[in-house]
């Protein structure tokens, strides 16, 4: 190929291609003596449009003043037939827009082959980094998937390929990716195993389809994989497995194209293609949490990878959930003192049970009753049912339907966002009052208690034994963590020790009264826990940290018809995750709290007896 002619008037576009419908990639030749300004104003179909651009040198020579740079430009709106770009002070270059027939001058593949593929390895790496930075900081507004696909194409052209291995491959090196999990665009989680009979492993890298690289070897957690022992009978038991969280420097959106590279000390490099990432929040969460199954302590290295990954998933889930619809039945009380928020999950039949009881207590018609439907698929039947139930029981209430299932914390927080009362009562749908007057009773106790944080009443099982008389934390040897436990659970509610009003480490959110402003100040329940567990103790711990006291008040009793939960493997995993997360967040505080807690011993003894 002959040397290109020097640029006219300082700038000349040598090649251009669309990375996405609104992102242009251009190779521009410079005369450095004229080029001072690197901005890229653009006109689309004759009108100026905003642009965002990044550039990187491909080459520059101070001697003859020639330089060559790669420009990535996002110009909106897309769908135009003609785009005019001005590089710095140079002349305007008119290019066919993405909507015009054919591609711009050359297609991306040709651009890469002619201008980029033969550059030295360092420059190619620099280009990849540049593209990822662009993708991270600017990206595409309208066509992020197209951008990702273009980035994959470029990654494959700029990367040195290595021998691919798979399950049937011969050779001294084995690398298997069991599961790749997508937490969000910028965070993945991987589980797999490695084995090298030739030399120690010196590098293990993950490469996203878009080209992001994460080096795993230094920070991944090694775990035993006894299931692989029979494959390697000559080597002793070693921790071949690994789990690792993968934070990315640029978003990754494609399901295909993940590559893992493994290099050993003998200089041999192999790569494998990873299976498609597990997506969907619940599936992803299940896959990640299940890696805790073999762990025995929250301090294990695995936990360090699991906790942030799941917390991110939970936050992502929470952010996606909105109130889709609010239906009002009956006239709302004008200035309610207490707002009651009740999540409804699956069992919408519990609504009739609560309303049938609330109907006989005039206080409940004075309160602001907010049901939050956390099973949106039941919305139509729940609303039809509610209309009839209101006609019968005449207790005014609202039903807020969430856009999707969000879990206990999200449901309560969304409900609380509708509340206008001075006080906020979090109530479960399987809590039934034992009589009338309990609500004002609770509010009165709340107001009479200085520095009160959360206040919880006595809760009874259907046989008048205690379901709740305050929460405490119990060290579980098996879990190596602090678990939540209920004082005196299962003992008769007349037990004198269970009838002493007192500050306790925490109270259950099955029935929890709190100042609404205080609840908002603390951003409500945190959504990082799974399945309606530990959100309440976490709130109470935060209240304690902020200087408030959580109170158990046995003067008021309600029934909590907590059902038996079946110990599925998933539930056990979730319980372990919750306990470990809480311990990792609050371990020290809990330790201090429990050593000061006068009822601790009694609580332990009572709990052990049941």
């Amino acid at each position: 190929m002959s040397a290109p002619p020097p640029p006219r008037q300082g700038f000349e576009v040598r090649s251009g291609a669309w990375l996405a419908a609104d992102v242009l990639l251009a190779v521009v030749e410079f005369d450095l003596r004229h080029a001072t300004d690197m901005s890229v104003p653009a006109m689309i179909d004759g009108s100026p449009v905003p642009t965002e651009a990044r550039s990187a040198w491909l080459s520059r020579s101070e001697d003859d003043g020639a330089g060559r740079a790669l420009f990535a430009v996002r110009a909106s709106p897309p769908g135009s037939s003609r785009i005019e770009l001005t590089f710095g002070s140079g002349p305007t270059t008119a290019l066919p827009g993405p909507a015009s027939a054919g591609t711009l001058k050359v297609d991306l593949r040709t651009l890469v082959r002619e201008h980029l593929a033969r550059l030295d390895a360092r420059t190619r790496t620099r280009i990849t980094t540049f593209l990822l930075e662009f993708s991270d900081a600017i990206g595409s507004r309208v066509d992020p998937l197209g951008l990702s696909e273009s980035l994959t194409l470029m990654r494959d052209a700029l990367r040195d390929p290595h021998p691919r291995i798979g399950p049937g491959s011969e050779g001294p090196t084995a690398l298997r990716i069991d599961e790749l999990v997508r937490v969000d665009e910028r965070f993945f989680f991987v589980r797999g195993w490695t084995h090298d009979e030739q030399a120690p492993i010196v590098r293990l890298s993950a490469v996203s389809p878009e080209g992001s690289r994460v080096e795993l070897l230094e920070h991944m957690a090694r775990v035993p994989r006894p299931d692989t022992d029979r494959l390697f009978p000559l080597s002793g038991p070693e921790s071949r497995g690994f789990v690792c969280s993968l934070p990315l420097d640029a978003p990754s959106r494609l399901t295909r194209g993940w590559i893992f590279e493994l290099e050993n000390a003998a200089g041999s490099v192999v790569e494998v293609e990873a299976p498609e990432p597990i997506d969907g929040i619940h599936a992803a969460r299940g896959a990640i949490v299940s890696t805790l199954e073999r762990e025995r302590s929250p301090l294990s290295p695995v936990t360090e990878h699991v906790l942030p990954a799941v917390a991110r998933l939970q936050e992502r889930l929470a952010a996606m959930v909105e109130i889709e619809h609010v239906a009002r039945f009956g006239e709302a009380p004008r200035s309610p003192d207490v707002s009651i928020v009740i999540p409804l999950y699956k069992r919408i039949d519990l609504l009739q049970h609560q309303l049938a009881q609330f109907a006989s207590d005039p206080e409940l018609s004075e309160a602001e009753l907010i049901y939050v439907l956390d099973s949106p698929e039941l919305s139509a039947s729940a609303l039809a049912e509610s209309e009839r139930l209101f006609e019968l029981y005449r207790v005014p209430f609202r039903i807020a339907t969430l856009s999707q299932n969000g879990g206990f914390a999200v449901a309560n927080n969304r409900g609380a966002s509708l509340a206008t009362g001075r006080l906020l009562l979090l109530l479960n749908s399987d809590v039934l009052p034992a009589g009338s007057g309990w609500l004002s009773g609770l509010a009165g106790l709340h107001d009479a208690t200085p520095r009160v944080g959360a206040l919880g009443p006595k809760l009874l099982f259907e046989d008048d034994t205690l379901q709740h008389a305050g929460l405490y934390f119990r060290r579980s040897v098996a879990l190596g963590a602090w678990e939540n436990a209920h004082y005196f659970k299962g003992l008769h509610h007349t037990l004198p020790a269970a009838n002493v009003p007192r500050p306790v480490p925490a109270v259950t959110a099955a029935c929890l009264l709190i100042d609404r402003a205080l609840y908002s100040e603390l951003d409500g329940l945190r959504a990082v826990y799974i399945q309606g567990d530990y959100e309440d103790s976490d709130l109470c711990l935060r209240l304690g940290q902020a200087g408030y006291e959580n109170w158990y008040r046995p003067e008021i009793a309600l029934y909590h018809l907590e059902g038996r939960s079946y110990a599925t493997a998933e539930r056990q995993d979730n319980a372990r995750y919750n306990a470990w997360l809480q311990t990792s967040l609050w371990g020290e505080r809990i330790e201090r709290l429990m050593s000061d807690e006068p009822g601790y011993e009694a609580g332990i003894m009572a709990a052990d007896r049941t």
Partner: protein
Amino acid sequence: MTKRTVLYVSHNHPRVRPGGAEAYALELYEAMRESGRFEPLLLARSGKPISKIGRYHEGTLLTGVDGDPNQYFFYSEYSDFDWFLGTTRNREVITRHFADFLAAYRPEVVHFQHTLFIGYEAIRAVRNGLPESAIVYTLHEFLPICHRQGQMLRVGSEEPCSHESPRRCHECFPDIAPQEFFMRKRFIQSHLDLVDRFVAPSRFLRDRYVDWGIPADKIVVEDYGRLPVREGAQPGEPPNRNRIAFFGQLSHYKGIAVLLQAMKRLVERGVDVRLSIHGANLELQPQEFLDEFDSLLGAIEEHVTFAGAYSAEDLPALLARTDYVVVPSIWWENSPLVIQEAFLHRRPVICSDIGGMAEKVADGTNGLHFRAGDPDSLADVVESAVCTPGLWKRLHDGIEGVHPMDEHVERLSELYEDLLERRQGERAGRQATTLGAVPGAVVE
């Protein structure tokens, strides 16, 4: 002043399918009309499984009953009925159809004979729509207390149940959590709370409901009223008083198996006794029961006459050929109508020594008791009944009359009037309170 109205709500109409409680409801309705004390209305639920047909008019659940402007059939869908909670899943049955019916007639008194197949919410609909009305509810069996068709009979041991609790109910129905039973009770009671007065045909039944949580002062014991017998069954003078008979539903709960086993023992002992079985609804019974019935009957066929279903008009003739009526129920019973029938025709009763049966039959005076569920005990009692000279005559002479319908109507009318007066008093009281609260009013 126009006559005040009482609405009777029943779970069936005897013209559709015979049944003791429903026959009584119709007789009460007719007797009340006769008495002129209140203008009666009868709303009888119909549809499956009681009747073969369902609703056949579009846009209404009502149809008329043979030209009587004060009687209606009320069709609710059986498939919508929730047996566990005793409610209808299609609440429009209550909030629209039943409520509209109430609004059209605005009865001063609503007297529920049953809410089965309609729903306990009907009570709340009355209270919502007619706040000044009086609500009366007759308790026939233990349906609100016991999920086992209101029988209070323990599953498995088949012993009568002394009291419910979520745990005990869960023992009978392991698939239903105790919490669900607790909610069931609270739910049903939240509706029964709105009833002004319950009518219990027996003291025994009243006591069970008081144990269960209904305030004692809300329940009056008032037996079913009976119309006078036009033609009594003449006893005749047969040589032996050895003809015993069973009348009623042929179901497990009625103790048919105990009776047949006792008969087998009597035959084995060589006691000369004959048994006639007059029973309906055998076809509705589970196969298990039918098999047991057949095999027990097979062993003693020559000594038993299986006569099948009967109607009220047949009773005098049937009882004329009967010396003793046997009521061997293994559940408590309430105030069995068959006992009233027997006494109306002056036939002594041999019955289980529990519940409403023991209450209504005085052992050694107008009948004999045996140990409930025990075929040996029943065999002994029957043997002594048929073999002891003069015993039949003594028991026959010990029978007093049963509660006459006109007295019953009088008692109920007084109850209605009393309740309405109280309601009026309350309303007056409320108005006085409101006046007293006017600012500046001087209260002396």
